[in-house]
């Protein structure tokens, strides 16, 4: 599996680590109710197919990336900077 970092180009899987679903970018507001936090921290859509995930280019530029990847084939469909995704 190779991931094309928008800043560094195509790099080996070993340069990256994954944190989980890109839904982690949508952190609940301060003072949100417990069920909302539980959903954010623990529950997952866990899709079989295209999935947006939060990856970190730890062995490269240090950028956080949103990688759209097919979990049934490992095909990388799209890579964007998380900073652009969030705004």
């Amino acid at each position, binding site marked *: *599996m190779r991931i094309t970092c928008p800043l560094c180009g195509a790099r*080996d*899987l*070993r340069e990256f*680590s*994954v*944190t*989980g*679903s890109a839904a982690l970018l949508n952190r609940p507001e301060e003072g949100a109710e*417990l*069920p909302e936090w*539980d*959903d954010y*921290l*623990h*529950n*997952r*859509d*866990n*899709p*079989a197919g295209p*999935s947006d*995930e939060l990856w970190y280019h730890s062995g490269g530029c240090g950028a956080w990336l949103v990688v759209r*990847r097919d*979990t*049934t*084939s*490992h095909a990388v469909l799209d890579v964007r900077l998380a900073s652009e995704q969030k705004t």
Partner: protein
Amino acid sequence: MRFNALQILKQGLTGNRGWAPQWRNPEPKPEYDIVLIGGGGHGLSTAYYLAKKHGLTNIAVLEKGYLGGGNVGRNTTIVRANYFLEGNSQFYSHSLGLWENLEQELNYNVMLSQRGQLMLCHSDGQRDAFARRGNAIVNQGDDAELLSPEGVRALVPYLDYEQLRFPIYGGLLQRRAGSARHDAVAWGYARGADRLGVDLIQQCEVTGIDIENGAVRGVQTTRGSIRAKKVAMVAAGRSGQVAAMAGMRLPVESHVLQAFVTEGLKPCIDHVISFGMGHFYISQSDKGGLVFGGDLDFYPSYAQRGNLPMKEHVMEAAMTLMPMIGKARVLRSWGGIMDMTPDGSPIIDRTDTKGLYLNCGWCYGGFKAVPASGDCFAHLIATDQPHEAASRYRLDRFKTGYGLMDEEGTGAQHNLH
């Protein structure tokens, strides 16, 4: 047909033409008391214990592929009861007890081989942790022996004891642990459940779960709709998709775990051995192949295969621990879909929908759990009360933070287990 020595002799002398199929292949009925979604190890054992212990036989097991075609056929067949935490320890203790009587119970040779499982430690801290874990296991009523480096060397002389990077400080041995034949466990429970009247329906994928007024009414399948008073989801790595049909999001991420087998060799590794300084564990199958595995690839996956970096890590760890393995050629590798929970422990619980039950989150430890998972899940479905050995496997423990079972002590968070 019961298996016994006389049968084998008789069939052998008459050309083995008298063996009958081990289970029926029935058409689904329009209605059952209980429908189990998933015909793997856990689903089949649940069906068996529902029929055997609770006398409930109007049951269907729906399997989208073939029986035992998922993780129960894709694991590394280790059976052990060496967990540390309250909640896990009594559950796996119960499971090992059921394993030890399984062949008599099912009249089926599951090839349980209690060859002993040895975990190695490589530092003072790790040895202290093993001493503590060993005491917990003994207190639970199971067996554990803390071995000195000399004790380990006497048991398994072929490890690399000379290297300085990861010296072997000792090991924790559980003699009652070992391995079993993976397919036979699924087949044995399938045959047992079928003989008690359970319908095992293959090539039948569930496409919807019918819920009315907060209570389950049945399921939609590729072979028509089936009404049911109770529906139980036991779909391992695919639990997320099944639960979504009931409008649920689970605290589960599906990951890939790889395993490997070498060409068949003469007997050389008599135990199950796990390395403490890298992700590597190994045993030898009855066919002679060295069966070994490592850790997750650590990205969500349903592909049932992994990538090369983890393969490389596992091979490096293998060569570090037992250089002799370098002469063996790897025959195959494969991956299974692990339903990972935030704390690394499973879920056996009711849901907010009346009559809908959930069994999932076995992470990378589902095989050894097959008997107790079935027993405890059957108890829950039949009585609506949790079995005492599985009372802590609650779905709401992540929400409340109470009763988390994080064996590794890394935190109850996805991607840490």
